[in-house]
């Protein structure tokens, strides 16, 4: 415990030290890396089966003590948080160089390190007040990172949306925790007990944590905020920060006691909606980081589906389904942190090299940025759930749980299981389509503009974190069965099933995973052998280089290539009803046509309909109270005094 708290301190100290004018950000990054490495030691120790360390100190804040603990669930979320934060810090040193002299880099590091520290604190806090303070710190630190480029209007807009969304979410959490604490008579996590109106609490937690996690339709801040932040921050936010929402939800479920079936159904439906709409909106984007941000919504959806199946398994006394659902969801948390971190870092390298996020101006970067291209491709294959990489392992667990439910359980379990299978299958195909598009349009073919043709490989400090994450994608694909063991204490804690049942179910699930790991190794060996055979076959043959087959057309140009918009067009047309893509075109006219143009834009449908109306209504409603706002300080002090008096009277009553 001491080591983690010391690490926390080092992270924060690094952040504050980087405020000194002459520091180049190395102090901040160094603090983050050193602190995270220190924290990884106790986290791994707990996952390896060590007893959970805890610390309880008295403090002056009302509502219990300063209580922190690393139990299995905390440790499981801590590992990706710490690892990705360290890698992001290394990357950030090089990435932020571009703003040197123009921006207060020190402030950015302070915010980054505060974000890291607060995420650590969120996962280990065992006191409501401490948790909420850490939660708020996390929101504010990430807000300052989102508005890093505050001279751009889009960044300010994104920051504003994020600030509003996260505080609305926090409001629900405040209600959740205060009411729960009141009923339990304590604000210590270990003394919170199941409330009488558990359903209400579940909804509060779902909305509150779901806003952070990015469940649809609460995700609106996400596709704006993630692209606006610097790329290593996007990686951190998308890879692990939104997972604190999943952590919070899972933690909240442990407070709420026996659960009715509709909770599982709700999570499943939320997961299906987020997953499907997330990937569809991703398909319709042509801003690389926005596309990745929508994929976070999709993957959070997959995680929610796993959790939903797990809850249904618990409710209907089907321990295998419960274990598989939770195991798949939790493993997907880690996997998504790895490949989404990797993809955002890759996108950052592309932006660093080309100064644009517009995919339709890119192309041919594989030759100019071989390392970025290769690692991005691995990340793309992993996020599409393709074997032999890590994404397949966690999706397979959810599939396996769903197939178990669909083939051998009664209708109440079978029907949601079937829905999950259908959803996963469709999401999988669409995600593969979307990442074939992202990879193909950005890295393959010919450059579509000057931005791309002048690109250069990223500096080493940016390359190494990407390489590490890409290796992790392959490694988890090959080591899936081993990971299942580390899940056992987490699953025992989350499902509250008898440990023996959990271990049996895990062993059952690990059996197919062994085949999959073996198959993954076999696949790689087979591919290597085939590559060798190909090299032998071609070694004595004539090999020519030529132009791409162009149907005899003499003057092909890079502009004739398929773009991200045209590639996705059949699918976006097919789902046009939900996407509502806006197209502006001026067609070529006459025998010698001059200008022609085409542009498409797919704004978020929830933002355009639900939220716009809701906030327009709120603005209208609040404008009625505008007379209260006179802009005179003494009036405001009067309001405060009046409120206090009113509260006093109400208290005396």
């Amino acid at each position: 415990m001491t080591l983690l708290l010391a690490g926390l301190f080092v992270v924060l100290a690094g952040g504050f030290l980087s405020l000194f004018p002459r520091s180049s950000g190395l102090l901040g990054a160094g603090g983050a890396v050193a602190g995270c490495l220190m924290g990884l030691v106790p986290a791994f120790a707990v996952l390896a089966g060590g007893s959970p360390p805890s610390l309880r100190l008295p403090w002056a804040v009302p509502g219990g003590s300063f209580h922190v603990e690393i139990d299995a669930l905390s440790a499981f979320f801590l590992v990706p948080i710490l690892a990705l934060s360290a890698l992001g810090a290394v990357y950030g040193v090089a990435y932020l160089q571009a703003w040197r002299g123009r921006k207060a880099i020190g402030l950015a590091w302070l915010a980054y390190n505060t974000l890291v520290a607060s995420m650590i604190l969120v996962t280990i806090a065992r006191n409501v007040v401490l948790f909420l303070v850490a939660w708020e710190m996390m929101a504010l630190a990430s807000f300052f990172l989102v508005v890093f480029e505050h001279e751009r209007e889009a960044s300010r807009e994104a920051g504003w949306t994020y600030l509003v969304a996260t505080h609305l979410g926090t409001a629900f959490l405040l209600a959740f925790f205060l009411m729960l604490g009141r009923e339990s008579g304590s604000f210590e996590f270990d003394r919170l007990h199941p409330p009488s109106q558990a359903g209400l609490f579940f909804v509060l937690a779902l909305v509150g944590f779901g806003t952070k996690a990015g469940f649809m339709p609460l995700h609106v801040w996400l596709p704006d905020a993630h692209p606006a932040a610097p790329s290593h921050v996007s990686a951190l936010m998308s890879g692990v920060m939104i997972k604190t929402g999943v952590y919070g939800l899972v933690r909240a479920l442990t407070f709420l006691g026996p659960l009715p079936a509709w909770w599982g159904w709700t999570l499943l439906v939320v997961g299906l909606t987020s997953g499907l709409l997330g990937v569809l909106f991703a398909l319709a984007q042509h801003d690389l980081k926005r596309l990745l941000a929508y994929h976070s919504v999709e993957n959070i959806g997959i995680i929610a589906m796993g959790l939903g199946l797990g809850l249904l398994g618990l409710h209907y006394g089907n321990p295998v389904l419960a274990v598989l659902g939770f195991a798949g969801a939790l493993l997907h948390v880690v996997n998504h942190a790895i490949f989404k971190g990797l993809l955002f870092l890759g996108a950052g390298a592309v932006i660093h090299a080309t100064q644009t996020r517009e995919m339709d101006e890119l192309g041919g970067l594989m030759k100019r940025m071989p390392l970025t291209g290769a690692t991005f491709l691995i990340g793309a294959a992993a996020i599409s759930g393709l074997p032999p990489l890590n994404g397949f392992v966690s999706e397979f667990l959810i599939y396996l749980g769903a197939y178990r439910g669909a083939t051998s359980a009664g209708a109440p379990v079978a029907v949601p299981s079937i829905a999950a299978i259908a959803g996963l299958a469709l999401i999988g195909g669409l995600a593969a389509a979307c990442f074939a598009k992202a990879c193909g349009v950005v890295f393959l073919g010919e450059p579509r503009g000057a931005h791309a043709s002048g690109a250069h490989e990223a500096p080493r400090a940016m390359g190494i974190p990407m390489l590490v994450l890409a290796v992790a994608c392959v490694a988890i694909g090959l080591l899936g069965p081993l990971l299942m063991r580390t899940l056992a204490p987490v699953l025992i804690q989350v499902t509250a099933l008898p440990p023996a049942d959990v271990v049996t179910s895990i062993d059952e699930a690990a059996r197919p995973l062994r085949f999959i790991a073996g198959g993954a190794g076999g696949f790689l060996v087979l591919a290597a052998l085939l590559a060798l055979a190909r090299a032998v076959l071609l070694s004595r043959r004539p090999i020519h280089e030529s132009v791409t087959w162009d149907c005899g057309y003499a003057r092909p140009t890079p502009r004739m290539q398929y773009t991200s918009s045209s590639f996705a067009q059949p699918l976006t047309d097919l789902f046009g009803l939900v996407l509502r893509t806006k197209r502006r075109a001026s067609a070529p006219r006459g025998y010698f046509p001059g200008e022609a143009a085409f542009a498409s834009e797919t704004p978020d449908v929830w933002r355009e309909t639900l939220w716009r109306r809701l906030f327009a209504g709120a603005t209208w409603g609040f404008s009625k109270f505008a007379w209260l706002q006179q802009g005179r300080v003494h009036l405001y002090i009067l309001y405060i005094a009046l409120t206090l008096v009113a509260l006093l009277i109400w208290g005396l009553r």
Partner: protein
Amino acid sequence: MNLEGLVPFALALVLAPLLLGVINRTKAFFAGRRGAPLLQAYYDVAKLLRKGAVFSRTTTWVFRAGPILSLAAMLGGLALLPVGGFPAVVAFEGDFVLLAYLLGVARFFTVLAALDTGSAFEGMGASRDVTFSALAEPALLLGLAAVGREAGGLSLSGILPALTAATWLSAAPQIALVAAALLVVFLAENARVPVDDPDTHLELTMIHEVMILDHSGPDLGAILYASVLKLWILGGLLVGVALPVRTGTVLIDLASFLGGLFALAVLTGVIESTMARLRLVRIPQLLVGATTLSILALILVLR
């Protein structure tokens, strides 16, 4: 690992190109032609393997890796397919999910190789391929869930042998619905009529063929071979579901399986000779229809 599964595995490696010959002969018969030799696919592969190669200057290693990874994925998929009385080389719970995703691996890299050429035609084919396959995937996986529930198994080597004549008698509508869905998936995934026309001569109308325009030599050979293996895998899946000959005598079961598979090849030839290709905008309806059939089967099984 089931070593006996290596027998049908080897058989598939040898016989798969013959499927293409049978399809083409059937089509020649309908057209009143003599047609290419039955062994034409073997000749093609052999010839391509002996050739040199031409690469576009635009392409990178992705273009060169595509055919190899596709072939490796198909070989992996083949190892998961039980045939006749034989279990698959590798069988485990949920192996069909891996099978479906291995097909996905092959597609992903074929599509990337196509985009690597920077050709508008290949981009077009790639775009269509990912669209249609994304829609075919639910039909396949839901169909397998239905027969899995009917047979009470979670691996292909458990499900397919359990679908006996008795199961057919008790659950004919369900299995027939799944078989119909699988037939659509078979035709769509293998780029056959009515989804794609392998004989078309216009790049604009192709899907699979246009994606591989720029490959040549051994790479094209690998693609051709991988595509006949895919024909075998999905065909084998369909025959395994639709043909309930489970006598327990290895030779009879194997012979009936092979007979079924080549009958399917003839059926494919008949479909291609008697049907026109669907308009591209109609194809999603066909695939969603197949998914609907799978869902109907599931409802019947659940009932």
